[in-house]
């Protein structure tokens, strides 16, 4: 919506150009009709042009069109031809009709447009409000729960530490550590999404190898994937891509994490990359419950959470930002991201990155 200012300016300009074009076109049509039709019928052609312009463009364009039509009609067709003088007073009436038609129709259109805009603004406001409250609900739940655990477990350690058995102490410390880690991941995601949405991220593009990025992701998420059967299938001679490797790593990590979270232990997760024409296609496929047909688009929306979690180890801990971040990052790089429902079941998340040719390093003897 932000860019509508520029768009509108352009549309206004097109409106005036169309007004001029319409008047010229009508004059040509009128010239062709002149031998067989009455001058009044030619006036109808001009009137039609005024109606069309008034319906389609701004009031200014409509009035301009009416004025141009009047002038052209008067100069070319109204006797005496070749002059702006008018012999017969009835033509003044024709002129007046054209102007009034332009004013009335463009006035009606303007009002309709304004109402539509107001409605759109209201919807946008409602949408923003909805997103904001979902954010609050999500964040407050996802922050409060781990905070409650951290506060509770650590207070037990502080106040009751001496009375607890060593293994109990250890278990409490473990849960403080685990919850704090989850929370810091959540906060990192929220910050990342905020930075992406604020448009303040400047891509640090550099030559990157998708195999290398995938390797880093798998090293980072190794623990999360321990219970799954990981299959890695990166074509050996993929071209380099010019991307912000840190962001792309995050995007891919979110897909892999998503697969680990929403699929049961023991199922396969396949991470692959291949070249298709001028694009690199990176995929994360799983054998989990799959995505509902209705949700294929919706899963990438902020704060969307799967309709049900199917026993992945970290089920239910997502805040619904991972895929939204992935979409934003891929979009910034001029790629696309989507999810498919493969025939064999599960879900296949894929994204593309445009390929450019990297210069070769100097050859070695």
């Amino acid at each position, binding site marked *: 919506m932000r860019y509508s200012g520029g768009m509108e300016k352009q549309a206004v300009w097109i409106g005036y150009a169309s007004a001029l074009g319409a008047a010229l076109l009508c004059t040509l049509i009128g010239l062709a009709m002149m031998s067989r039709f009455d001058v009044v019928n030619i006036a109808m052609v001009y009137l039609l042009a005024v109606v069309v312009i008034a319906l389609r463009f701004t009031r200014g364009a409509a009035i301009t069109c009416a004025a141009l039509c009047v002038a052209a009609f008067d100069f070319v067709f109204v006797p005496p031809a070749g002059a702006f003088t008018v012999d017969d007073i009835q033509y003044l009436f024709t002129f007046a009709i054209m102007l009034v038609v332009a004013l009335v129709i463009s006035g009606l259109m303007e009002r309709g447009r304004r109402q539509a805009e107001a409605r759109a603004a209201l919807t946008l406001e409602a949408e923003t409000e909805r997103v904001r409250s979902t954010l609050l609900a999500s964040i407050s739940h996802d922050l409060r729960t781990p905070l409650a655990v951290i506060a509770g477990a650590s207070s037990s350690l502080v106040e009751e530490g001496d009375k607890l058995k060593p293994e109990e102490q250890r278990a409490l410390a473990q849960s403080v550590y685990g919850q704090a880690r989850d929370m810091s991941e959540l906060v990192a995601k929220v910050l990342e999404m905020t930075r992406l949405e604020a448009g303040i991220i400047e891509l640090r593009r*550099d*030559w990157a190898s998708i195999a290398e990025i995938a*390797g880093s992701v*798998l*090293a980072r998420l190794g623990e999360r994937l321990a219970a799954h059967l990981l299959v*890695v299938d990166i074509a050996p001679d993929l071209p*380099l891509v010019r991307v912000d490797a840190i962001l792309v790593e995050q995007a891919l990590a979110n897909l892999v994490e998503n697969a680990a979270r929403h699929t049961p232990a023991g199922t396969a997760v396949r991470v692959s990359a291949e070249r298709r024409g001028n694009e690199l296609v990176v995929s994360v496929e799983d054998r989990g419950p799959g995505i509902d047909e209705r949700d294929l688009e919706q899963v990438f929306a902020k704060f969307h959470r799967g309709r049900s979690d199917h026993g992945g180890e970290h089920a239910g801990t997502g805040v619904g930002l991972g895929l939204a971040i992935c979409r934003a990052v891929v979009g910034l790089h001029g790629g696309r991201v989507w999810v498919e429902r493969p025939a064999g079941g599960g879900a296949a998340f894929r994204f593309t990155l445009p390929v450019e040719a*990297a210069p070769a*390093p100097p050859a*070695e003897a």
Partner: protein
Amino acid sequence: MTAPRATILIVEDEPEIRRFLRSSLGAEGYKVVESATGRRGAIDATTHKPDLAIIDLGLPDIDGVEVIRQIRQWSVMPVLVLSARAREHAKIEALDAGADDYITKPFGVGELLARVRVAMRHAVRPASGLGVLKLEEATVDLEARKALRAGREVHLTPIEFRLITHLAKHLGMVVTQKQLLTEVWGPTHAEDTHYLRIYMKQLRDKLEKDPVQPRHFITETGVGYRLME
């Protein structure tokens, strides 16, 4: 296992983080000196002559990078930096200013101690005699310039050797892309990161069991590479 009572300087403004560093490093037998500001840290470094410094990059008074520069004017002591996630640029700046490695906040104590041990080892035994690099599937004799994989010789190009040698000098520690490019290809190629991508792939193909999930030639995305034995 650790050198007796080695001293570690911590330059960090958050008292809670200092407390946690103090207790975990203290438990490992290190003597800890704490500075809450960058200026104080630069002074404490000269007076206490620590064996290693841990410097936070988000200090309130002067930039942590500036503290590193001041220390580097007179000392080669190992320096580790603490940095927040998504601040890769600050990490690179610190590493290029002379820091030896970094730890991303939040971190676990295991990761911290591992980094400290590696950096200490380098300080005690500077990597001049390079010797033989033992990898999972292969061995690389850096002096004889010979690489063996499963008993068979693997041909490495001169540039590949230079790359491994430079990484091995900093075994276990990160080396920035710029440092590698400058060292191996020369300063005019400091920005030619695609050379690194291509050569790291070659090295992994030749020496790693699984080149896509490497165990030795580790990528630090956006920062550089780390060679692990």
